[in-house]
C-alpha cells in the first residue's frame, strides 16, 4: 500500500545540549553558540546524528524497530536551535527515499534512503 507520511518536529533551543548529555557528543560547535560563531557557523548546530535519530523515529513511528533495515543520509545543511524540521516519505513498503527540510525550505538531509520491511 502506498501512502504519504509527513511529520514536523520543533528543535528546542536546548536540544543540542540534551543530545550531548545523551550521546556524549560535547563538541563545542554543538553546545556553545559563541564558539560556533567563531568557527564561521550561524549558531551552535544540532549534532547530525541527532537529526538522524529523529529521522529513524519518524520512519519507525510506533512500530517494531526491527522494520528499519537500513538508513543512508547526507548532512546537507546545519540544523539550528529553533528550527522546524519536516520529514516526509512517499511510500512505506520497501527501499524508500525520504526528505527532511527546515522551515526555510532547505534540505537538512539530502540523498536520503531507508529500507523498511
Amino acid at each position, binding site marked *: 500500500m502506498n501512502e504519504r507520511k509527513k511529520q514536523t518536529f520543533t528543535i528546542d533551543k536546548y536540544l543540542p545540549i540534551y543530545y550531548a548529555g545523551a550521546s556524549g*557528543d560535547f563538541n563545542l560547535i554543538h553546545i556553545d553558540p559563541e564558539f560556533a560563531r567563531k568557527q564561521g557557523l550561524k549558531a551552535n548546530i544540532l549534532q547530525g546524528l541527532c537529526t538522524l535519530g529523529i529521522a529513524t*523515529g519518524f520512519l519507525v513511528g510506533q512500530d517494531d524497530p526491527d522494520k528499519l533495515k537500513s538508513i543512508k543520509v547526507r548532512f546537507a545543511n546545519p540544523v539550528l536551535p529553533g528550527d522546524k524540521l519536516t520529514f516526509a516519505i512517499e511510500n512505506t513498503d520497501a527501499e524508500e527515499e525520504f526528505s527532511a527540510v527546515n522551515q526555510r525550505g532547505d534540505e537538512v538531509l539530502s540523498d536520503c534512503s531507508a529500507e523498511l520491511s
Partner: protein
Amino acid sequence: MNRETIGKTYPPVVYEVGQEKIREYARATLQDNPLYTEPEFAALSKYGTIVAPPSFVAVYCGEMFNQLFSDEDLGIDLPRIVHGEQEFKFRKVVRSGDIITSIAKIVDVFSKQSDSGVTHEFGVLKTESKNQRGQVVCEGIWTVIQRGIEG
C-alpha cells in the same frame, strides 16, 4: 587528515546497554515509541524488555570517535569537523542488557575542493558492532568532513 592511516583499525569498544540510557537517548532524539520508553509496555512485547532505537548505534559507537578524534596519526582538528554522511545497516534490535562490542577501520581519507575554492578533507570510517552472542547488530559507514580554512 593523514592518508597513510587508510586501513588502520582501532581497539574494540565495549558498551553495556542500559534501560535509563535508552530512555534518555530516546527523549533527546524525540523518539516516543513505548518500546524505548515504557518498561511495562516493553516487558509484554516479544522483546520482554526495553529495546534501543536503531540510531542508538551513535551511543554504543560513541567512544570510537573519542579514539579517532584524539588519534595523532590521523591528525584531526576537532573544531573544524562536521558530520558529512552516514549509512547504517541494522541487523538486529539491541535490547537493554546487551553488551555491544564495536570495531572500526579507516577506509578512506581524501580531499575535495568546494565551489568556493576551499579544500575540505574527508575521512571515512567503517564500523561493525556485535552483541554478546556474536550476532552483528549494526554496520556503519561514517563520513566526517574537516572544513577547510577560507583563503
